[in-house]
């Protein structure tokens, strides 16, 4: 039996279905990310687990205990809010100690646990400061320490890194992973940042419009997205629309491509399908080896890599190339592209995608 079980969870705000039939199992000690675009119901799901929103239907079980009807304050979960929600009138140590006070942990034991929690987030030297005197990253870590000091059964994080600048965010990602593993706490992270989800989690649950779209390990989710939405949301992806004619794939403009055989039961068995292709799997080759040729429409320099938009007979393709330190084709140049057929993923085209 899973440690945390979300069982057919739904939440409606009036006529609006914010979360629909959402089921997810999380094992003890696991780090799972809820990943999805803004407004897809991530926070709502988290709030239902935390006890701040009542599910319209469905159940939440934690360690075998049904949480419905249990007040937020009795659930014993550690929550890190997007705004950190530190108590501005208390010092760092008092913030961390608040949960202990509520649990009537006093004296030496209280001191020891505050010190241990601050040690864990490397903030022992700032125990006497007020939150206003801290940087964003430091506040973030105080919020983590405050949530972890009560030894929660479950740690909930709602976009904890979204207020930080890019560099600090990367540092904090490593830091968060380390802290989670040291504390060994089961963690559910909500984010709309796919890099964050992939960097941190053991498993990613991709959400779209209130429903669970895919649930897999980061590498698996990236390599084998099961829907067009998941493929487009997790990293960049090219979509090539067409259909199978016998064993051959023909694009909607009539170009024949070598493609993996469609799964017998799933997408592509009949009708329109979509091939998904990662931009970094497309290579620049000699004309003789080309799968398709095209003209560079746009070129963007991203530092460690180049991003090309190439107009080809199969549609516009995004291509990324590692910056090897030499000149790359200019916009307007003709380039020849190739890829291995087994990098293509066969998916059902999505109406909304």
């Amino acid at each position, binding site marked *: 039996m899973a440690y945390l079980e979300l069982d057919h969870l739904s939440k409606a705000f009036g006529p609006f279905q914010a979360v629909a039939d959402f089921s997810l199992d999380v094992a003890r000690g696991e780090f799972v990310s809820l990943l999805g675009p803004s407004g897809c119901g991530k926070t709502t799901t988290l709030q239902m687990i*935390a*006890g*701040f929103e009542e599910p319209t239907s469905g159940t939440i079980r934690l360690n075998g205990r049904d949480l419905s009807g249990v007040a*937020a*304050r*009795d*659930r*014993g*979960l*550690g*929550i890190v*809010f*997007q*705004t950190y*929600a*530190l*108590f*501005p*009138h*208390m*010092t760092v140590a008092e913030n961390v100690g*608040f*949960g202990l006070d*509520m*649990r009537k942990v006093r004296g030496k034991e209280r001191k020891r646990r505050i010190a241990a929690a601050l040690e864990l987030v490397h903030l022992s030297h700032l125990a006497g400061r*007020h*939150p*206003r005197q801290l940087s964003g990253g430091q506040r973030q870590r105080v919020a983590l320490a*405050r949530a972890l000091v*009560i030894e929660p059964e479950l740690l909930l994080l709602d976009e904890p890194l979204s207020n930080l600048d890019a560099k600090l965010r990367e540092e904090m990602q490593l830091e968060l992973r380390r802290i989670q593993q040291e504390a060994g706490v089961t963690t559910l992270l909500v984010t709309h940042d796919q890099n964050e989800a992939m960097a941190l989690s053991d498993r990613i649950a991709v959400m779209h419009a209130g429903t669970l779209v895919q649930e897999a390990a980061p590498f698996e989710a990236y390599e084998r997205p099961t829907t067009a939405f998941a493929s487009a949301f997790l990293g960049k992806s090219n979509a090539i629309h067409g259909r199978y004619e016998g064993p051959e794939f023909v694009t909607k403009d009539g170009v024949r491509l070598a493609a993996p055989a469609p799964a017998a039961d799933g997408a592509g068995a009949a009708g329109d399908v979509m091939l998904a292709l990662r931009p970094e799997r497309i290579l620049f080759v000699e004309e003789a080896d080309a799968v398709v040729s095209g003209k560079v429409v746009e070129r963007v320099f991203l530092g460690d890599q180049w991003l090309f938009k190439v107009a080809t007979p199969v549609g516009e393709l995004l291509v990324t190339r590692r910056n090897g330190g030499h000149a790359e084709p200019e916009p307007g140049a003709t380039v020849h592209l190739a890829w291995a057929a087994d990098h293509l993923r066969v998916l059902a085209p999505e109406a909304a995608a």
Partner: protein
Amino acid sequence: MNPFLLSAPALALFGVMLVVPLIMTFILSFHSFGFYTGIEFTFGLHNYIDVLTDDYFYEIFGRTFAIALAVTVICVIIGTPMAFFLQRMRAWTRSIMVLIVLGPLLVSVVVRTLGWMILLGNNGVINSALMDMGLLTSPFRMMYTSGGIVVALAHVMVPFMVLAVWAALQRQDPATIAAAESLGARRSTIFRRVVLPQAMPGILSGSLIVFSLSASSFATPSLIGGRRVKVVATTVYDEFLNTLNWPLGAAIAIILLVAVLVIMVTWNRVVERQFAGVFQ
């Protein structure tokens, strides 16, 4: 444009309306007064010495600050929870409530105080009702007492407190309440340990406003206190208009001003030090 130039009209108005009369009062307080000679343009501290060595004035100052303190405490006790409930209301009920809270300020001070006189008098509504019910045999005196002044002043001062605290509550992150709840705090603990301390800047500014307005208020104490219960402002008025001893009246007014300033600055310091985290 230069910001100084932009604020020049306001500064000019401020100068003419406030600074000039204040300086003139200050100068006046050093002159002396004779029954037959009127104001003499001497220069000395005798008015201050007169006030500071006379028990009569100590009593009046003591009463004034006691009334102002009582009004402030009552306003904090009533106004803070009111602001808290206001904050948690839905938008449209809130706008109605704000109007009700502001009500006392929309009524002229004379009308409002006459209303209190009707209520508090020996033959007033409250006493008559209590006697008709048989709870009192003789009327309980409320008119011409400090208590009556406190009640009538608190009535008009509460809106200032509510608005000041409400502004502070709006600045606080509602997620801190959720955070406290998730850490296991009950409602009352959340109010006491999370909401209230964060509302301190509002309580502080509200109490500063209420205290200084109460200590210097004139109309309400003069109507409800009458000739019997004098406060500083009514004493100054009497010196100016009855005794015609303007220099003494000016000295009393200056002492009141300085005393109120000292109290406010001290109170400000104490609260800011106590709740260092929420100020800045």
